């Protein structure tokens, strides 16, 4: 979950002067607010030390890898967001999964690449790997923060504003609508109450998922209609996983669909490039 909206290309749309902020800091600002609000109000972290370990490992890995590969010092906003996300999403009584998940997440960006583009959202890759490889030591965040709607409304509003500023709100809106559509479908199939099918999206795991993971510019396709189509497919695959009773269905769905969408786009870009040259 690099949420590299922060490092995204500048938008062409003119903005009011008060909105002219360095966008690389928007995602870190949002996720820091989420972290502080959650911990100071409810003490929701496994521990400060585990989260700091995740952040420190992510930043250190980013520094070392980028320096080794490109000889430059990277901007650390992306690694910071990844570290915090790992610190929030990973739940383990042990310390090592936090460091390992951060290290896998960041390293995956520079190893699993096609045409100099990484395919997986780093945190999504790291978390899924931990859930698959270390289920005895790791679980994901699956419970609510707090017991009222206020924190949820705050995150949703603040997150939506930031996504609007970076022109990615369409992704989140499409995903949420798709989730609701498939929740209705699942309720019809399983006979469960509608509200129990909708319940998961009211939780914090989804807040991180829809504001930081599926919207990551580096691992989403470029065209708006394609972005919406991809998240619709993610929601569809997630619904299938849910019918199969996978607790962390959204992570697995993004893990499968995200890279395929990116590969298709890369292939299309290459094909267009070749056609352009032959003309």
């Amino acid at each position, binding site marked *: 979950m690099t949420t590299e909206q922060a490092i995204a290309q500048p938008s062409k749309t003119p903005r009011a002067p008060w909105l002219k902020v360095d966008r690389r800091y928007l995602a870190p600002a949002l996720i820091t607010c989420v972290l502080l609000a959650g911990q100071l109000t409810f003490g929701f972290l496994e521990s400060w030390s585990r989260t700091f370990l995740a952040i420190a490992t992510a930043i250190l890995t980013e520094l070392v890898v980028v320096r080794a590969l490109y000889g430059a010092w990277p901007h650390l906003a992306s690694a910071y967001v990844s570290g915090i996300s790992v610190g929030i999403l990973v739940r383990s009584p042990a310390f090592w999964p936090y460091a390992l998940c951060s290290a896998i997440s960041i390293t995956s960006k520079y190893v699993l690449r096609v045409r100099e583009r990484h395919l997986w959202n780093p945190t999504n890759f790291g978390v899924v790997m931990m859930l698959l490889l270390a289920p005895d030591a790791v*679980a994901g965040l699956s419970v609510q923060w707090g017991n009222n709607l206020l924190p949820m409304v705050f995150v949703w509003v603040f997150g939506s504003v930031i996504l609007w500023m970076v022109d990615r709100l369409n992704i989140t809106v499409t995903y949420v609508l798709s989730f609701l559509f498939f929740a209705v479908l699942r309720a019809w199939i399983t006979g469960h109450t509608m509200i129990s099918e909708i*319940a998961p999206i009211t939780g914090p795991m989804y807040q991180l998922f829809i504001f930081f993971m599926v919207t990551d510019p580096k691992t989403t396709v470029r065209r708006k209609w394609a972005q919406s189509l991809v998240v619709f497919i993610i929601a569809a695959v997630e619904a299938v996983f849910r019918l199969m009773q996978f607790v962390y269905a959204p992570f697995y769905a993004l893990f499968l669909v995200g890279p395929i969408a990116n590969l298709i786009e890369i292939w299309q870009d290459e094909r267009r490039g070749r056609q352009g040259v032959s003309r």
Partner: protein
Amino acid sequence: MTRYARVALAVIFVGLLMTPFLVRRLSQPASPIATSGHVDALKQYGFRLTESAKAAGLEFVHGAPTLDPKLAHIMPQVASMGAAVSVVDVDRDGLPDLYVTDSKEGSRNRLFRNRGNGTFEDVAERLGVADLNRAEDGVSMGAVWGDYDNDGFEDLFLYRWGRPVLLHNDRGQRFTPVTDVTGLPAWANVNTAVWLDFDRDGRLDLFVGGYYSEAVNLWKLADTRMMPESFEYANNGGRKYLFRNLGGGRFEEVSAQVGLASRRWALAAVAADLRGTGYPDLFIANDYGVSEMFANDRGRFREIGREAGVGYSPKSGMNAAVGDVLNQGRFAIYVSNISEEGILLQGNNLWVPSGAVGGIPRYENLARSMGVDLGGWSFGAQFADLNNDGFLDLYVVNGFVSASQQNSYWYDYSRIAGGNQIVISDAKNWPAMGTRSLAGYQQKKLWLSDGAGRFLEVSQLVGATDRYDGRSIALADLSNHGMLDVIVANQRGPLLLYRNQVAADRNWIAFELEGGCKSDGATGCTNRSAIGAQVTVRWNGQQQVQEVSGGSGFCSQNQRRLHFGLGAGGTPDKVTVRWPSGKVQELTRPEVNRVHKVEEPA
């Protein structure tokens, strides 16, 4: 350069992905014997357990209540508590007896009197403590024993989802309900109670912790909005009560007056002097939230959970037990939670004291590093030196609802647990459970201390092999021969008795304390049950402290007698008894391998 760096990075990446396998391999027990199927447990671990409830005449199977039909779709998980066991010497014959609660409407609790020949007889009916699960009064959840009027006989406080009741022990011959004069609540959904002398006046007081709100009658629900408002931050549970003993069978409810207010979902509590002030502090393990620690400042309580480090990281607290796990003369606290591979890994907590700042103790959760974190869906846990090696071991029962072996409710449970307050707090939103299991058929954990800060799990190797849905554990030396037996109450399952056999070369010593208050109005002395008295045994350059408890674990109470293992050939140099009255008594080089009766000096 970049190419080499890329190759190196790819190798490192593969290494990172392989790390979990490496960690798993390294964390396997060092001893190959620990994984073998053929172990002479007595030789290898110094003890073995043999399940022998039937042979001892302890034939009892717990039954669960049938609550309001509005809860029918999730009945197994709501009606999931009530199997409890507590130890008491009801007739002062020197032999520990067992009180076991049932929870089906109209069922009868059992009082198994120890005949002293390895068998028990049920005397509950004769003594008037059987017929206590009438539908109109609610059903039993647990019981704690304490001599509230200092007449020498342990009285019974029975808590229920319903009307709690105090029964006076009439010299071991009969029990008389005294509820009408005590000011107890007419209805409360209680899952924990502890006897303690919080103001050190020589009379036992009573803490009572509610789980569901006392406004809820689980058999006659006004509506279904009675579930926790959050999986981890719920504050809509039952209230807490503190009954100050005024003497003459009268109690005054003083929780608000002394600062003991909480609406968390209490499942377990333990009282012990955690700060060395002489006053018992109170630790409460809460379901759906953080634990609470109430410091007792000369009879007034203040919540110091966060300052002490235990009030963060909300989990599903279901047990509270104290033990001097590192033989440092200080109590660690064990709280059980939920761990399910790949779904929810809360990990149990072992809060070990690491110092104090401004009179407030600081605790660190060392469960992971000491190897006692992953139990399962853990309920009751107790510390005890089961092999008399001089170090406290830990017995933990696990398992929530064992039904279908094929189908699990975990997915639906996790779905609702992540939902917002509006969703989770209303039972009608919870998916139907049907015959599915939720963390069922789990192994128990018997963690054996190595004395160096690590525990080795040996349950299957020493004979603790059942897979029932364990709830309450109590420990007692049922034969007075220096070996602690384990009694386990299982939800919808049989009562189990694990008889203990310890290697013959291990020494032990035990202390049966009696406080100096011999009448209801006595002052300047300790309550006759000696609850709150601390005994420190020093031997071979080490020490261990234990405290007489008025209830610990989950819905349970161990024998009042304090039992210390001393290891092979261990002999104590000095034993110090610190009475709640403030008196300190010393015993020099007491004889080993016997029970010492110690009375508080005048």
